[in-house]
């Protein structure tokens, strides 16, 4: 399958059926004839193709911009002051500049996944061949739903995935170009382009995960994926310790393979941070998960790792300096993160090991994954005894150093969360590290406090030591990433979701830039698991929710099953596995509702938006990847909630519940336009507190298509959560109750009383076959 037409002119060709001379073959677009689904209207959409759909959403959910800076500094005309109604030297407005930065962030995010996919693909094709068959999930025909939906192709081999990547790359370059000075000028057009980047990102992520699942034999959508351990306590420090950081599993695979082949796994701990950890454990459950991105520094400061292997994305960019401090060599493995290290790809492994062990270089760059295993393992074995003398910060030293604090409060001002470090340091100087230990779980490990400290106090080490002292460095169970949701699962729950009887799907995704620590993610998960939502998780969030045990010593992974059904808790996998979450929504439309998938983006998005009560929560969203992942959800009509730091993405997309005219929706049966209420109220929303986020999640799970039974279930959760956290009934119930039957049975009297006081009348809010697309009306008539 190729997206281009093709002409071959070959002087001599020898093939299995004979030898041809002067062969001249011309072939147009080669399509997959075996796929009987006809091509939809928008295969391989370009940057403007889905603009109308985007504008429909963006008219409802208008951007509220919060500039992170008054200026634009992107060209030498600048810096330009854009405050108020001032324009830049290129004519740009503040609104356009904010959306331009959103677009750039989404482009960087999507490029990151796409580049990662391309890099892996090249390697995997070398090893497994271009014709390697894709095998992504058990019991599943609709593999790679994002790719099918967007590209209109049905990938069967690695080769087919390359076509999807080609397309994503071409489009991303178009989008990045748009950010050039003097191109796009309209903020809504910028937003639409950001949506495009997000959609592309989900294709890129799907490709990345599809190729690694298929070749490396990761769990293929199984509910009972194996358990492994997470947390500092999971590492047996008497063993040799290799720490792997990043997102590209290939170098780690080589480490694991080398350990297996050489029967050394018993003597070595392979601990990962960030998505490499997820993917290592998907490859071999003996690989341990140390924790999310925010734990890198913390873990290095323990002094335990004997060698640090980094690949790409979400690394501490000062990792070489930090590893040097504990005498651990660094092995960099990606052209994207070369970290200034000498390229030793083509040198004999033993020479490299020798140079690392002798400290002739703080680290090396090895671009061939097949060489990383040997070098990393040999180096680690030799370093272990050499490093035996390393002493991490002692309690005495901590207290002594704490005494030198000048009370300048620079640490607090530098801390993204304004954590009260100064006071804790002063308490430590008096001998008590309780305050430090209390801070530690809320610390995102960024070391800005250290950087700002005029006394150069190693404050992150202070926190780590204090927490350790208090026994806060435990080990927890984590089910390894299972990958996609299977067709069979979709078939079973589709109805419940679409008609609202399963109250919703809550997706806990993204990074660890939490306002008050990662345990809040466990709080959210537990709240919605108890309420029998389906809870899916990926990336750092899938790790953080594991980090609390109940009285019985069990954590959420141990208490809730891993299948895609009400009350299920699914670790989907690493960041690239996020594509399976949108993929599940798409498959509900395709498999359950039989909507055509192929190149049919608008109809599917319209379906998901109006019928699938899914809500994404990226409580600690930090990165450009998080931005593009969210953006891909928006275009598909899935609302996303972020924590307070998420407001730094520069805008929210907010609906106006008070404007009836904003919520007019077509009835697919009649073509009539009807008010459906503000469902879902927002598309992108930054919550100030966890409690606010939970109540909002319940509210955002409502959809116009809910049956009365479904709406009643959803309302009951909304009301219940609201009562708990806001201390009263919600005051907007009149916007969500369509008919009396929508009201949860046990609350009927109370609710009807309230809403009638607000002038509620039955039938004002329509119950219909909801769609935003004109052409969907005819389809039904």
């Amino acid at each position, binding site marked *: 399958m190729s997206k281009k037409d093709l002409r071959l002119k070959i002087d001599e060709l020898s093939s299995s059926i004979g030898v041809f001379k002067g062969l001249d073959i011309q072939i147009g677009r080669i399509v997959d004839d075996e796929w009987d689904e006809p091509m939809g209207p928008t295969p391989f959409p370009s940057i403007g193709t889905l603009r109308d759909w985007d504008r429909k959403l963006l008219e409802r959910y208008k951007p509220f*911009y919060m500039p992170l800076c008054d200026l634009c500094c992107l060209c030498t005309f600048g810096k330009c002051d854009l*405050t*108020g109604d001032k324009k830049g030297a290129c004519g740009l407005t503040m609104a356009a500049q904010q959306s331009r930065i959103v677009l750039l962030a989404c482009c960087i995010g999507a490029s990151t996944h796409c580049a990662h996919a391309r890099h892996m693909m090249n390697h995997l094709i070398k090893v497994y061949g271009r014709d390697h068959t894709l095998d992504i999930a058990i019991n599943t025909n609709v593999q790679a739903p994002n790719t099918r939906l967007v590209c209109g192709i049905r990938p069967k081999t690695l080769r087919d995935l390359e076509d999807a990547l080609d397309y994503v790359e071409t489009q991303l370059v178009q989008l990045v170009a748009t950010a050039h000075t003097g191109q796009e000028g309209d903020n809504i057009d910028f937003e639409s382009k950001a949506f495009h980047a997000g959609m592309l990102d989900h294709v890129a992520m799907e490709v990345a995960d599809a190729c690694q699942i298929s070749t490396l034999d990761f769990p293929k959508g199984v509910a009972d994926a194996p358990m492994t351990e997470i947390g500092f306590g999971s590492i047996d420090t008497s063993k040799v310790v290799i720490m792997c950081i990043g997102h590209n599993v290939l170098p780690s695979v080589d480490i694991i393979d080398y350990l297996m082949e050489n029967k050394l796994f018993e003597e070595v701990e392979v601990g990962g941070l960030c998505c490499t950890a997820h993917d290592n454990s998907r490859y071999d459950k003996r690989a341990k998960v140390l924790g999310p991105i925010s734990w890198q520094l913390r873990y290095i400061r323990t002094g335990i790792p004997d060698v640090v292997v980094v690949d790409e994305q979400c690394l501490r960019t000062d990792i070489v300096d930090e590893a040097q401090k504990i005498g651990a060599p660094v092995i960099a493995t990606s052209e994207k993160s070369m970290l200034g290290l000498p390229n030793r790809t083509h040198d004999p492994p033993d020479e490299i090991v020798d140079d690392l062990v002798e400290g002739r270089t703080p680290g090396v760059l090895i671009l061939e994954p097949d060489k990383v295993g040997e070098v990393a393992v040999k180096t680690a074995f030799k370093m272990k005894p050499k490093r035996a003398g390393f002493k991490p910060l002692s309690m005495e030293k901590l207290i002594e150093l704490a005494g030198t604090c000048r009370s300048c409060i620079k640490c607090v001002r530098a801390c993204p969360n304004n954590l009260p470090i100064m006071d804790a340091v002063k308490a430590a100087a008096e001998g008590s590290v309780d305050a430090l230990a209390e801070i530690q779980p809320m610390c995102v490990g960024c070391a800005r406090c250290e950087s700002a400290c005029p006394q150069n106090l190693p404050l992150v080490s202070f926190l780590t030591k204090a927490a350790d002292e208090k026994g806060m460095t435990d080990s927890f169970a984590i089910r390894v990433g299972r990958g996609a949701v299977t067709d069979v699962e979709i078939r079973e729950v589709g109805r419940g979701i679409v008609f609202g009887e399963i109250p919703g799907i809550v997706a806990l995704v993204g990074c660890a830039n939490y306002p008050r620590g990662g345990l809040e993610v466990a709080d959210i998960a537990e709240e919605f698991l108890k309420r029998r939502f389906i809870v899916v998780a990926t990336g750092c969030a899938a790790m953080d929710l594991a980090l609390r045990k109940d009285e019985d010593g069990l954590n959420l992974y141990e208490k809730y099953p891993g299948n895609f059904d009400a009350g299920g808790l699914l670790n989907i996998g690493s960041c690239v596995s996020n594509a399976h979450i949108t993929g599940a929504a798409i498959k509900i439309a395709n498999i359950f509702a039989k909507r055509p998938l192929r190149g049919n983006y608008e109809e599917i998005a319209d379906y998901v938006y109006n019928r699938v009560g899914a809500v994404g929560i990226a409580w600690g969203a930090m990165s450009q990847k998080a931005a593009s992942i969210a953006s891909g959800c928006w275009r598909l009509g899935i609302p996303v909630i972020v924590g307070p730091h998420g407001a730094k993405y520069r805008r929210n997309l907010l609906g106006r519940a008070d404007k009836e005219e904003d919520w007019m929706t077509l009835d697919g049966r009649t073509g009539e336009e009807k008010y459906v209420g503000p469902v879902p109220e927002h598309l992108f929303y930054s919550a100030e507190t966890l409690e*606010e986020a939970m*109540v909002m999640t319940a509210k955002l799970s409502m959809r116009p298509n809910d049956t009365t039974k479904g709406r009643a279930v959803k309302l009951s959760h909304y009301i219940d959560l609201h009562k708990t956290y806001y201390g009263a009934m919600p005051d907007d119930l009149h916007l969500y109750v369509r008919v009396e039957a929508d009201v949860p049975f046990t609350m009927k009297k109370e609710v009807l009383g309230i809403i009638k006081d607000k002038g509620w009348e039955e039938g004002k809010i329509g119950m219909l076959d909801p769609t935003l697309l004109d052409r969907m009306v005819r389809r039904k008539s």
Partner: protein
Amino acid sequence: MSAKMRTGQTAEIPGPKKAHVIPQPKVAASLIKKAKRPLLVVGSNAPKLKTNDGDLVDSAIRFLKTGVAVVATGHLVKTFRDRGTEVYSMPFMNLGDRLTDPDWAGFDGEGPYDIVVFVGSLYYMEWLVQSGLKSFAQDLRTLSLSNTYQPNASWSMGSMPVKNWLTALDEILKELEEEK
């Protein structure tokens, strides 16, 4: 530069359009007094901030009693309710968004607010919302009453020690109460 101009977080730099520093509590009080429809926005940090009245929620209730409309963001309204006081409630983001709409007639439908006073929010979140208002609600006057300078407001208290801030807050309230 004067210590008062120091921002609440290191990297939060004031831009070309910056808040006037409130020189004295009286000035803040008179800004509020002169307004026809003032709104006080109380952020979710309020219960953690101790004041002479107890905490910032208690102080906000004092504001309410002087006739200033009060809205709690996050889930803070529960704390007010627990203390027997009903105030408006709205997510901070929604509120920021509504305030950029000159047609929004306020919680009571009586018309737009003419000064919006902020207190008790996460520093960076208020910074951002104020930034949105600075550019997209240019006619709206905003006042930040935290003890750290908020450069994006129209007026802001300067950064000051907590003790001074407590006194200042008290003075503002007294001024408002006197008028009543």
